[in-house]
């Protein structure tokens, strides 16, 4: 599948934003969110989510009609994603106001509602891909836990970075130290699953013809939308190298830097900020691979023997 920059930026930014929003909500519910950190975290989270959705409209042929996407929540995960995203703004905005006014009374329910709706939005994003049967790498039970774990991890890294600037942040860093191995495990399990699974469908099944089926002649001599959108291929050696880069930037470095920030107050802030930047960069590479390594059944009509 074509790794479109708009969708990669959208899923990474909104994932990090909702992860940060959910953690801020949970910390607030537990009474552990200082006013300054809470305002900064929720502002950054809302900014990341807003930037992500703005990027996603670049993927649309008719961005001015984007509001129509809220109407089909009964059947469409993309529509549910939009509804959940808007709904999450209500408790998140109220929590932000509560923090601004220095009130504590409603922080627990607002924090829990914010966390729940943030998790719901990320789940809807994941289910858009999870529910597409023509792409076997996405029609996989590990897609949903991957999106959730990566959102939690990037959110935790950003919360730890913000907290370290405020001179605290041991709790947030501890959450990040748990979230990074969790996300790394989810990603490794996903990659292992899609590598081990044999291709499901063949050109013979796609055409209903008996015996081995080879493409003799394509319907057209040049590219078309189907090949540009669904026919993207990434060389295996590049995929292997990019996976190593994603592991290093996304998980190994953030873990070591977060541990360093906990151990030494001298380097705490720079290490935590570097951890967040590195983790986000690693997840950008991971998300590029999520698309680039996915194969679509339409390629069976264009010369793929099996997908």
């Amino acid at each position, binding site marked *: *599948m074509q790794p479109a920059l708009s969708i990669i930026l959208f899923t990474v930014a909104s994932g990090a934003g909702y992860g940060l929003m959910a953690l801020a909500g949970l910390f607030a519910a537990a009474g552990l969110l200082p006013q300054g950190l809470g305002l900064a975290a929720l502002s950054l989270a809302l900014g990341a989510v807003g930037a992500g959705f703005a990027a996603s409209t670049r*993927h*649309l*042929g*008719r*961005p001015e*009609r*984007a509001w*129509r*996407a*809220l*109407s*089909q929540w*009964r*059947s*469409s*995960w*993309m*529509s549910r994603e*939009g509804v959940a995203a808007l709904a999450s703004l209500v408790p998140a905005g109220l929590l932000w106001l509560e923090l601004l006014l220095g009130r504590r009374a409603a922080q627990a329910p607002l924090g829990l509602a914010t966390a729940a709706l943030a998790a719901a939005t990320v789940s809807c994003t994941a289910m*858009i891909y999870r*529910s*597409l*049967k*023509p*792409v076997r790498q996405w029609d996989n039970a590990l897609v949903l836990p991957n999106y959730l774990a990566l959102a939690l991890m990037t959110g935790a890294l950003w919360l730890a970075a913000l907290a370290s600037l405020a001179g605290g942040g041991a709790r947030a860093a501890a959450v990040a130290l748990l979230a990074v191995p969790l996300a790394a495990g989810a990603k490794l399990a996903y990659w292992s699953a899609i590598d081990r699974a044999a291709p*499901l*469908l063949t*050109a*013979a*099944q*796609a*055409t*209903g*013809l*008996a*015996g*081995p*089926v*080879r*493409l*003799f*002649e*394509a*319907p*057209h001599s*040049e*590219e*078309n*939308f*189907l090949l540009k*959108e*669904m026919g993207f291929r990434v060389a295996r050696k590049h995929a292997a190298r990019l996976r190593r880069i994603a592991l290093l930037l996304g998980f190994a470095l953030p873990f070591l830097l977060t541990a360093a920030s906990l151990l030494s107050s001298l380097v705490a802030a720079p290490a935590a900020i570097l951890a967040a930047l590195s983790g986000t960069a690693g997840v950008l590479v991971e998300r590029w691979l999520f698309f680039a390594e996915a194969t*679509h*059944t*339409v390629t069976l*009509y*264009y010369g793929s023997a099996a997908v």
Partner: protein
Amino acid sequence: MTSLPPKRPGQKQLGLVIDLDICVGCHACAVNCKEWNNGGGAGPLSDLDPYGARPDGVWFNRIHAFETGEGEDGRTVYFPKSCLHCEDAACVTVCPTGASFKRAEDGIVLVDEALCIGCKLCSWACPYGARELDEKEGVMRKCTLCVDRIYNETLDPADRVPACVSTCPVSARHFGDLGDPQSDVAKLVAERGGVALLPELGYRPVNRYLPPRRRPVAAAASAAAETAAESAGSKLLRWVDQLLSR
């Protein structure tokens, strides 16, 4: 509304039956499809760089060519592919705007281009590649089963079939109600063992493909033996004989 219409027994399901045994791969159906729909209700079907080095554009119908079998069983199969108007059309249910819908009255899957935001998710959800983005208009396009022909009372009744069906020079394309087991197309599918594409995925496509007939091996061998003794003139008669004895 992108929920699928409720299923009723005997539901009308208009669709195509494509005979892979006799399709000659002339692309006339694809050309007439583009011609009709470019100017019809579903048009225009935009082209990018149509006279340049890398022409690209929207087509509802595309003709692939495959080789199957080995040795003497090897053959070339021309394979026209357009929307299969699935009963459980995921392209409809994934649509976030309600632009994509399946008609309750005849099962045709359509896009309301005034609602479409061009998110392309329907093209990802379709395993067959039936939907294409019109990059100039920013909306998704797909086969309408020539909904603006088949009910068009200004046309001669004989012409009230999809453009691809009307133009096929070898009658390899058939149009009708596949939801009715007594229809001509349903009987043809039953008689010839027509197949659905990728039934494993569960979209329940309506269109059917009639597989190429098996070559009569014994007859071909004995015919070849006769050929040696026959003059060139009788080859024509033998071909007529083969054609008539199908």
